[in-house]
């Protein structure tokens, strides 16, 4: 599942990145997304759940669904 599909309030873990655009992966990593990190979608915009704000470790990051598609996650209990 990708981060863009994750439901609001469900804790998940990043398991990898999948993007044809290497610079997007670099940007995501630089701002703090990494394998093993906990993420949770906190807020989404009114139209098409776009953009979304996620909680990543202790940080909050706003991103678009088009960017969230590149982050592969799995649910944790």
């Amino acid at each position, binding site marked *: 599942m990708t981060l863009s599909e994750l439901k609001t309030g469900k804790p998940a873990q990043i398991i990898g990145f999948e993007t044809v655009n290497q610079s997007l992966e670099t940007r995501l990593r630089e701002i703090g997304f990494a394998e093993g990190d906990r993420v949770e979608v906190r*807020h989404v915009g009114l139209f098409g759940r776009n953009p979304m704000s996620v909680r990543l470790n202790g940080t909050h990051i706003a991103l678009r669904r088009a960017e969230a598609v590149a982050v592969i996650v799995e649910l944790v209990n």
Partner: protein
Amino acid sequence: MLDVVDTVRPIRLALLGAPNCGKTSLFNALTGGRAKVANYPGVTVEYRKSEFLTSAGDKVELLDLPGVYGDCGHSMDERVAIEAISGKIDGEQVPDGLIVMMDASHINTHLHNVLQAKNYGLPMVLVLNMMDMAARDGIEINVAKLEEEIGVPVISCVAVRASARAHLNDYLSKWVPELNAGTTKAPANEPSNLKDLQKKARAIATESVTQSKGRETQSDAIDRFVLHPVLGPIILALILFFMFQAVYSWSGPFMDGIEWLFGQASDLVGSTMPDNWFRSLITDGVIAGVGAVLVFIPQIVILFAFILLLEASGYMARAAFLVDTLMAKIGLNGRAFIPLLSSFACAIPGIMAARSIESERDRLTTVLIAPLMTCSARWPVYFLVIGAFIPAQKVGLFNLQGIVAFGLVLAGVVFALIAAFIFKKTLLKGGNSTLLLELPSYKAPVFKDYIRGLWDRAMIFVTRAGRIILPASIIIWFLVRYPTREHGLEGTFAGMLGRVLEPIFAPIGFTLEMVISLIPAMAAREVAVSSLGTIYALEEDMPDGVLEGIIAANWSVATGLAFLAWFVFAPQCLSTLAVMKKETHGWKWPVFAFTYLFFLAYIAAGATFWIAKAAGL
């Protein structure tokens, strides 16, 4: 010889860190805030530089750089920060050491950026800022362990509290002589691959940080409302609306006071000096011209009091989040909101701030629409004309003048969005934009930094009055007085010049005085107001510099409204066009911007004039 020179020059330190980690607060705290804002040669990214003495008395030159996450340099300002450290910028030397800063609460997310900074090969120290907030959020950091693991000195700090900066001050007074003697070593290199760096950083964080999980922070609680899909945009609209209401409702008494002062000054000069050309220059040129603009200081200060508060509190990034959907529709993204918002102060810093936008096409689009944001130079014109034609009555809870001002600002924004939409569909097609924006924790602004910011803004306005408006007032005074005033304005240089241009502006309802005031307004838009002040001061006996009443008596409502509509677009501002040329490396885009803005201004003013006339105004 070289050794002597080396010991005399100050030690150069650079502050490096992610956006919002508190670099600027630390910079202000260490240097007392008296910074020189300068531009790198060849590029216009601003950096701040200042000197201070350590507690041991050694001189340090501190450099505040734009916030960066990694070392790739995706946008122009990130590239500048990285090039400054690597010594790739002409005229700037490689710093002697780095003060790398990190928000202590974000150690889990940002530690890999610190490891990466070791690869610059410069002596460095890590400052963990906002330790108090981290503690409040249940984050415990074992500083000794962290220091051992990453292999550089780690100092905990609360940049805004003097007592919590003691460690850092002690360290600097020890470190700087070492840097001077050249006995400090650069830290060991780290892997260059981001994935490996992150792996290592996460392992270090796991060992040295304990975090009580699942706690709802205050910021989270606030965001439940502020980022709510329905409530959020409503709150944003209310904040902006309240801001414009306050600008009008609170400024009245202060403005009356300033008007009274200029009136007194004018009377004093009038009664003590002989009636000659020089008295006319002082009262009609200098006092009427400069006074007409300075009277708006209270409104400018209130406006910036709000903007700075929104910035310092962390709300601005939320606003960018909230408007992103709208920006997506026109092909830009929420990030463009920040340069556009600074354009409300002045388009120049806005156009420069657009450098943080990665995609070149998005950057150009942002640069082109930045002049449509209502800059502070337009406020004097709005305040003057609104004051003259819009009654100061209440509509329900609201001040009617405030509503009109809000409407004008909104009109600028709407046309900017339409223009951006068209540009992105035609001239500047393509370019992919990412949002990826950190939402910082909410914090109360540091009072001293806040007041200093407000003071700086007010002083920029006042010094403009001195540098641009004063000379412009004197020139316009000369033009509207000579060679002869026997036939009123007709016989003056300004009258002759205005006559040439009048046929262009007559169809949209502009009077000769208005056309004349637009010419010097090329230097700065608010000069239109000071010029009108001077023109009418010579034309009639202006009591106590009350330009508003004179305009209300001389212009029709339709003309007044057309003038307002013109200033929503106001293509005339040489400094904006000059900075556009610099930022886009050529005349093509500034010429294009001037042309499209001129046509929009002309059409809007004309339409307003004829519609208002048809409505019988």
